[in-house]
């Protein structure tokens, strides 16, 4: 069997994505604490991301596997100037699968070419983070009971937000309707609009969204980083427009859920946390199941 990796969400066909979501559901319902007995997974974090690393390590541990790796490149051979290729070739000998995060874009794709074991991309700079997309889709399916015909609001930084770009691509086969809510400076790039047009997906762009919330099945909030604005006055003026507050949710559908890839800064007010519509913490929990599914699928333990 060829050595299959997951670097970008487009590495999986729609059927494979659906299969991963099924497997994730299976792991949530029936833990399989021994399926990774005797297996070693390496988590190579060339830049720190504690939450993502813990989620992967939790996934491996829940299946009886062992974890090796590093969470800080400063204490590893990387700081001695070893090439990525050498690190990956060597670590390939020590483990059955590599999970890696790296600040440079394309690093995971390159690692998958030189590795002799499957590689899971846990983020390569601003480029890809496919397991985030899978856990987002799992959360949508779980809360809405379906993936088809979902009305999804994406709010915040739509220009640089890689989670937004991957999610809209992966959801496009399921006839979604998108509402893109952002400051004009952080609008969705044209290449993604062209993509949606080519797939016949409906989308609308808005600069504010409080009146539109009753239409939403999912509100996907993202962080707006101050660094994106050269004019800080503009940032200060606009940041409140893209903040979700509990009072805005009165007329929302009872089944509507709020997602966020986390960490949040202030774009979801703390008063939303008590709302049954707040789903971002469970969403993080779903990440463990989605990662269990990806790991066992790539290792050929699940088909």
């Amino acid at each position, binding site marked *: 069997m060829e050595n299959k990796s997951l670097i970008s969400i487009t590495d999986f066909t729609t059927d494979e994505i659906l299969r991963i979501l099924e497997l994730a559901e299976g792991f949530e319902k029936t833990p399989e604490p021994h399926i990774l007995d005797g297996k070693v997974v390496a988590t190579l974090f060339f830049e720190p991301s504690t939450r993502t690393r813990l989620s992967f390590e939790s996934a491996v541990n829940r299946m009886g596997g062992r974890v090796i790796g590093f969470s800080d490149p400063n204490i590893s051979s990387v700081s001695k100037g070893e090439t*990525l*290729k050498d690190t990956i070739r060597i670590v390939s000998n020590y483990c059955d699968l590599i999970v890696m995060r*790296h*600040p*440079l*874009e*394309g*690093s995971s794709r390159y690692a998958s070419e030189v590795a002799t074991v499957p590689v899971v991309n846990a983020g*390569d700079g601003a*480029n890809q983070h496919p397991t985030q997309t899978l856990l987002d889709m799992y959360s949508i399916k779980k809360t809405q009971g379906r993936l088809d015909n979902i009305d999804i609001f994406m709010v915040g930084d739509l220009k640089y937000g890689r989670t937004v770009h991957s999610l809209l691509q992966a959801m496009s086969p399921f006839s979604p309707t998108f509402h893109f809510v952002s400051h004009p400076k952080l609008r969705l790039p044209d290449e993604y609009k062209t993509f949606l047009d080519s797939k016949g997906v409906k989308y609308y762009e808005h600069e504010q969204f409080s009146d539109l919330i009753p239409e939403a099945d999912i509100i996907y909030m993202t962080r707006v980083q101050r660094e994106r604005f050269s004019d800080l006055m503009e940032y200060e003026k606009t940041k409140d427009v893209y903040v979700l507050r509990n009072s805005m949710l009165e007329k929302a559908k009872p089944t509507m859920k709020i997602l966020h890839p986390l960490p949040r800064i202030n774009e979801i007010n703390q008063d939303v946390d008590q709302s049954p519509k707040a789903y971002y913490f469970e969403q993080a929990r779903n990440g463990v199941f989605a990662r269990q599914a990806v790991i066992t699928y790539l290792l050929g333990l699940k088909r």
Partner: protein
Amino acid sequence: MEKKELKVNAIKDGTVIDHIPAKDLFKVIRILGLDRIETPVTFGTNLDSKKFGKKGIIKVADRFFKDNDINKIALIAPMANLNIIRNYEVEEKRPVELPATIKGICKCMNPKCITNSEPMTTKFDVISGDAVSHNVSLKCFYCGKVTDHDHIEII
């Protein structure tokens, strides 16, 4: 006019590459590795051209290029013409063809791309330009970013 020009410094056998934009002549020489070969190479530049004002031409004696190699120059000289010469006659004349993918040769313009920090070969999908400018751009296989024509840098 063109015929006449070819006859000046005519070569017996080899390859003549014509219609190279004058400013890109040295890039073409580097892509084809003509700065490192032993056989005679002559080139002319800043010659008048109806198509681009100033053009360059390269004549390489006793060398016939593989399609794969020669088509690489389409990246920067998409209008270039190849003349295969045998026994002083033009045996074949054809335009260069843009390859679908390209390995090596160019740098990715994204400073945060892995190809700019590892000793590795770059890989790109070639995106052809519009009919007017013919400007080719390159999509990096690794980081996915597009390097536009003006930023194509030969390694």
